[in-house]
């Protein structure tokens, strides 16, 4: 009896257990299904959030700052003159490296160190120089504040001067003799986008020093101070506006200030203003494989007669000081062949410049006729990578034919 009861109880218990087990398994399956769904969603969410590249994932977010970058550019050129009396040369023209550092999202440092002509020593011709070293604080897109040694925003070449970015082995004459590229000053400036595509840059900087003029063939270039114990009694101001749209750049810049520097470099210039004003207008347009570019630059230097007097009294080889500068060029290039990274683009450039000097015939200070020149350049840029270029061209000078030359160059930037 008790055995039967026991069996019944066990059977009932088993049945109950069985029923309980069934619900429990179903519940468990449901729970598992829910869990799987939840995990699936989580995995795809994580996958979506994960950066594409493992190396990008390993890299700390740039917003965290403390990023230092190293970069460089350079060029090696060969100039062979048609006139055998002129010295043909091969030159490691520039070897430049630079450091950039982001202290945080807003504050950054940029610099460029340049070596020219391969070897620098007291008995060699090379130069070592700091081309840029400035700090920039970004308040917003509309407003940045910079301070230090920075490039003056005149012309097309001065701020963007890496060899793969311009046509021709040698930089054009106008942006060498009229706008003294690579032209930098110590100072402060504010810059940003005023509106969409319109960039402004204005500031106060060191200026030129009329007491240091020594080569009128390069206009006022020899009077620039490059942040080297710059005489800074007279400061200069600059302003530039550039408008960009896809394929188009239109802009201009103005730089003005006195250059007498209270006679710090030449006592005879004490009290002489010798005001320099230099401005330019430029345009670049790219359409259907064409790169078209044009620039006009003009400058005046006041008190050229007083500068002449100072030169006569102090220089063993006095010359007529420049009183006005003018230059222009037009350039057309066509991307004839492109394949992968290769880009072969022939170009032509016509340019002209006039450096008018303050004559003083009584003292033998005369205009140098070769400072009125026209140059025709024809050649090609062959980029074997967007940042590496092989260039070659032929240049023909109208006034001084002995300058006619054939050039080959190799340039890079990274």
């Amino acid at each position, binding site marked *: 009896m008790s055995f039967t009861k026991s069996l019944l109880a066990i059977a009932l218990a088993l049945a109950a257990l069985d029923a309980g087990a069934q619900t429990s398994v179903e519940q468990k399956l449901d729970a598992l299904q829910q869990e799987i769904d939840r995990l699936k969603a989580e995995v795809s969410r994580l*996958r979506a959030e994960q950066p594409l590249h493992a190396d990008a994932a390993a890299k700390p977010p740039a917003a965290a700052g403390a990023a230092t970058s190293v970069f460089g550019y350079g060029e090696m050129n060969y100039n062979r003159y048609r006139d055998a009396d002129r010295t043909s040369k091969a030159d490691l023209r520039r070897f430049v490296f630079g450091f950039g550092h982001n202290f945080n999202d807003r504050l950054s440092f940029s610099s460029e160190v340049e070596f020219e002509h391969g070897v620098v020593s007291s008995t060699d011709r090379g130069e070592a120089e700091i081309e840029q070293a400035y700090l920039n604080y970004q308040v917003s897109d509309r407003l940045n504040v910079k301070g230090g040694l920075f490039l003056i925003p005149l012309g097309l070449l001065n701020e963007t001067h890496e060899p793969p970015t311009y046509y021709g082995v040698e930089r054009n004459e106008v942006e060498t003799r009229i706008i003294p590229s690579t032209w930098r000053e110590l100072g402060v400036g504010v810059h940003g986008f005023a509106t969409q595509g319109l960039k402004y840059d204005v500031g106060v900087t060191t200026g030129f020093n009329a007491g240091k003029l020594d080569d009128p063939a390069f206009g006022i270039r020899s009077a620039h101070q490059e942040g080297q114990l710059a005489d800074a009694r007279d400061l200069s101001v600059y302003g530039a506006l550039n408008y960009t749209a896809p394929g188009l750049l239109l802009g201009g810049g103005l730089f003005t200030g006195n250059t007498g520097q209270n006679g710090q470099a030449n006592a005879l210039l004490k009290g002489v203003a010798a005001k320099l004003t230099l401005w330019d207008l430029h345009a670049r347009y790219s359409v259907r494989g064409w790169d078209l570019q044009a620039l006009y630059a003009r400058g005046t230097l006041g008190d050229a007669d007083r500068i002449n007097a100072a030169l006569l009294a102090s220089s063993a080889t006095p010359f007529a000081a420049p009183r006005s500068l003018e230059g222009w060029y037009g350039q057309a290039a066509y991307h004839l062949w492109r394949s992968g990274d290769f880009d072969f683009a022939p170009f032509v450039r016509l340019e002209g410049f006039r450096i008018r000097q303050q004559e003083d015939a009584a003292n033998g200070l005369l205009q140098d006729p070769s400072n009125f020149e026209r140059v025709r350049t024809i050649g090609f840029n062959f980029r074997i990578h967007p940042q590496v270029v092989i260039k070659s061209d032929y240049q023909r000078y109208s006034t001084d034919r002995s300058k006619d030359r054939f050039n080959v160059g190799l340039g890079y930037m990274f």
Partner: protein
Amino acid sequence: MRPLDLRLWTPLAAACAAAPAHATQYLSVEQAQRVLFPTADAFAPASLAGLRAWAASRSGALLGHVLVDEVVGKHELITYAVAIGTDGAIRGVEILDYREPRGGEVRDPRWRAQFIGKRRGAPLSLDEDIQNISGATLSCRHVTEGVRRLLEIYTRSKGP
């Protein structure tokens, strides 16, 4: 000479105070999604060849996808988003983060508009069908290459 009037500093101080907290972020992923598919009511994470991708839909109907990726400008990463419609054509490109001191012109909507309507097979090559912006060449080139790559991966994973 008069002492410098310190009130001259007021506009600068005001500008600093008004500046956003992150100088480099222009759009969050969520903001970019809404800009690229303004009519969508849902963005679901999508599994798409390992890309950071979201499917944009409206009332359950798929409108397209938003892909987010990064390329190097000159030295810093540029985070950008590409929207591709169900027809395989680009609906838009947005720059989310731009960290370089120069070259910010890639954010110009007129530059980015050049990508709209492009499909797989378009050259998507700088100076060919995408015009460069002077002063921002490297950023323009690398974003263009990035968009081409995303479009290629996307169309391959979705079939022709």
